[in-house]
């Protein structure tokens, strides 16, 4: 199964499925690194609102994806960390370090607009 990615202007919206495998996460990382360049993408939204387990591997990979996207010249924002998942991550001692987060898609898109100086191409 491939993780679904939607394009909105110069933004990609990635919806992570509830049970995403390690392989799919790593494939996603490669795919986003390529698509950011090919499609002139400025912002990537990583939606984790249906993900119910963010363990150490998944968290590290999410950080890796965000860092890869940034190195490719775009910005990533993680949206929709569920309250129970946030609690679990704190217990585990996991952080997203400097990867920005947002409560919902609108806030995530606003964040990307600001971070890229309006470069996400949404015309607002």
């Amino acid at each position, binding site marked *: 199964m491939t993780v679904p990615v939607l394009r909105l202007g110069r933004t990609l919206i990635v919806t992570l499925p509830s*049970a995403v*495998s*390690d*392989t799919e996460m790593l494939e996603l990382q490669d795919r986003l690194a390529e698509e950011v360049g090919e499609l002139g993408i400025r912002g990537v939204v990583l939606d984790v609102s249906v993900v*119910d*387990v*963010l*363990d*150490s*591997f998944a968290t*590290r990979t999410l950080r890796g994806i965000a860092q890869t996207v940034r190195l490719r010249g775009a910005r990533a924002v993680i949206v929709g960390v*569920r*309250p*129970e*998942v946030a*609690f*679990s991550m704190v*217990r*585990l*001692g*996991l952080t997203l370090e400097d990867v920005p987060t947002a409560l919902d898609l609108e806030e995530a898109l606003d964040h990307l607009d600001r971070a890229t100086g309006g470069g996400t191409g949404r015309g607002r």
Partner: protein
Amino acid sequence: MADEHRVPIRSEADVLTARHRGRELGALLGLSSTDLILVATAISELARNILQYAGKGEVTLRVVNRGRHRGLEIVASDDGPGIPDVARALEDGYSSSGGLGLGLPGARRLLDEFEIHSEPGKGTVVRGTKWAPDVAD
């Protein structure tokens, strides 16, 4: 549904199966939605540890009773190289594989009870329990 599930851990797909089974059993026990996620995350860390250090092993999930209390017990066992220094493996940030070193100490913080038996060269058994809230009689 049976009160015990044995999930062989040989691939990352098995990690997903183990945590899914844990959630199912935990839901039957009446664990809260937060506890279900803590349990699933702990199972994920323990099953990953098996893959990483032993290559294969098993996660057993069962309902346990202690007096009036019921809980979900998670046993992660393998015949791998074992842990030479268990106390050190439970320290945050310690990892012999270059990982985050959160597997064991992290799983311990997610559960109510936690113990490790390990013999170098023979394998490791990790046993953790999450107790369900008391049911009013």
